[in-house]
């Protein structure tokens, strides 16, 4: 029986500590991990809880992130509740096995402290790794602060393990900006938290020797497509389950999350769409601008995969100009958030003006002042009746302005 861990009603935790406490409270059976900055303390703390008897689990030390996720796949297929953490290059090395995990429908939870990808080497936060995982067949939840990192991790177990879902789930937080920023967190008691997550429900576990099963079989053109279609449908169908679980968590904590969060959007004329901690900074900018009479609002996908195409459309259809903020180098294209939001809005009558900002790469500061400037640029588009700037711009870049593509509509 595990030792009792003392938790106060209000704790001052950073995102990493909050996530590690969620792993402890969910009573994760196995963590196979190869630590990497800035996610290291998540698995380090889990190891600490195991070593000090606060959890009956196992920490498996491995030789790489590829092996870490492989260990997770093995343990999950065997029939255990499994989690790990990574960032950046570690995430990149895991990618092959991320597809294996989702293809095998194993509800592993991967906590990610988002960090830039080299080269140049950089330990700080951007969303390159989160974006790298977006086609991997995982559910991706995004936390904007430390408390949400805790909340999303608890929800992740319940969502992924739901018998109608059975998919792996990533929980993202911004490296350093959330992972290493301590703030007030209101955790659940161990009993409440475990009561919410519930006992692990095994499905086709390999350790049931009375019923042998195969994982990761080979299928060529005869069945591969059907498997992938089923997996995609499972992701699409998980939307209603995620809504239900967020609602249940809201009843427990008074913190009710939505797959798309909207702030100050009731009568908004201009909006920013963003991910991560910048969402909160933009909220502050919108509040300050509203005091000056500018109808500014913020929309943020809480659930990045499955992409909330319908909810994004609903949230933004009455807005006139929108800036989509991408914190990942787009490598010769428009930012992913811009592309996906624009696609959703193309199927509306109103088709608002949408522009794209690449910002914050490698941890470059994103200030309230800059968020306000971006809002005001959207306002200028509204007043002019057309987009007055390049469609893609770089925000916070030193040196001459960088932008691409002019609008073809007036």
């Amino acid at each position: 029986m595990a030792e009792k861990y003392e938790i106060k009603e209000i704790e001052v935790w950073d995102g990493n500590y909050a996530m590690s406490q969620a792993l402890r409270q969910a009573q994760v059976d196995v963590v196979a991990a190869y630590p990497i900055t800035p996610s290291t303390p998540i698995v380090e703390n889990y190891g600490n809880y195991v070593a000090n008897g606060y959890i009956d689990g196992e920490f498996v030390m491995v030789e790489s992130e590829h092996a870490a996720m492989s260990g997770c796949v093995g343990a999950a297929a065997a029939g255990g509740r499994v989690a790990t953490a990574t960032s950046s290059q570690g995430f990149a090395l895991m990618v092959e096995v991320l597809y294996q995990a989702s293809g095998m429908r194993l509800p592993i939870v991967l906590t990610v402290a988002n960090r830039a990808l080299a080269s140049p080497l950089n330990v700080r936060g951007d969303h390159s790794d989160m974006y790298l995982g977006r086609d991997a067949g995982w559910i991706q939840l995004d936390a904007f602060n430390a408390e949400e990192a805790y909340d999303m991790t608890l929800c992740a177990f319940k969502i992924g393990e739901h018998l109608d879902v059975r998919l792996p789930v990533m929980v993202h937080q911004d490296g350093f900006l959330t992972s290493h920023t301590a703030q007030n967190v209101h955790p659940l008691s161990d009993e409440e938290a475990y009561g919410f997550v519930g006992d692990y429900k095994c499905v086709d576990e390999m350790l049931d020797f009375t019923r042998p099963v195969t994982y990761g079989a080979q299928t060529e053109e005869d069945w591969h497509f059907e498997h992938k279609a089923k997996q995609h449908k499972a992701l699409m169908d998980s939307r209603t389950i995620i809504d239900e679980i967020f609602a249940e968590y809201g009843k427990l904590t008074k913190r009710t999350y939505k797959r798309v969060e909207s702030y100050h959007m009731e009568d908004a004329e201009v909006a920013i769409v963003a991910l991560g901690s910048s969402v909160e900074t933009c909220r502050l900018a919108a509040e300050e601008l509203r005091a000056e009479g500018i109808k500014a609002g913020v929309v943020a996908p809480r659930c990045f995969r499955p992409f909330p195409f319908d909810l994004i459309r609903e949230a933004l259809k009455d807005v006139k100009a929108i800036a989509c903020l991408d914190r990942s180098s787009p490598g010769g294209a428009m930012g992913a958030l811009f592309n996906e939001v624009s696609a959703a809005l193309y199927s509306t009558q109103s088709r608002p003006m949408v522009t794209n900002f690449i910002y914050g790469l490698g941890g470059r500061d994103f200030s309230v002042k800059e968020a306000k400037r971006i809002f005001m640029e959207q306002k200028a588009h509204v007043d002019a009746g057309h987009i007055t700037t390049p469609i893609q711009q770089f925000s916070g870049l030193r040196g001459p302005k960088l932008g691409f593509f002019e609008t073809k509509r007036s």
Partner: protein
Amino acid sequence: MVEIRWHSRAGQGAVTGAKGLGDVVSTTGKEIQAFALYGSAKRGAAMRAYNRIDDQKIINHEKFMLPDYVLVIDPALAFTDNITENDKPTTRYIITTHLNKEELIKGIPALQGKEDRVFAVDCMQISLDTIGRAVPNAPMLGAFVKVSGMFELDYFLESMKRVLSKFPQKIIDSNMDAITRAYNEVK
């Protein structure tokens, strides 16, 4: 909103100090944010840590701030780092130094004209005397309690005892001595 910027070297405990302050502040019903700019910085490298304190939930995640307090816990950084960066006409400085306040200000032109907002305390000597090692974070907290008037000393000491409760009694006691001495000695 109260904003605090710590100037420190990696290993001197600015992050622990900022988080410890956060722990105590949270017990008063206020919201707190504690973060640092380091990452791959090695022990001894100049770094900065930050606190925000407010009555409302803190949703500002920018690194930029106009500090109300600048806490310098390494004596040399007062001279080599830009400690007055983005300051306000009301920013208060608490600087660890073996010099007296007049000597200190004489050596740092940027502090001249701000004499009434500069406070000196020898956190290094105090931590060597009490804790036995150069860990200037605890005494800086004591000096901050005095200068800011944010807490009663006794309340702060009791709260810090809880924050440190996982440590041996000897370490808790020496930290309490360090905080109290700096509270009394800051000028």
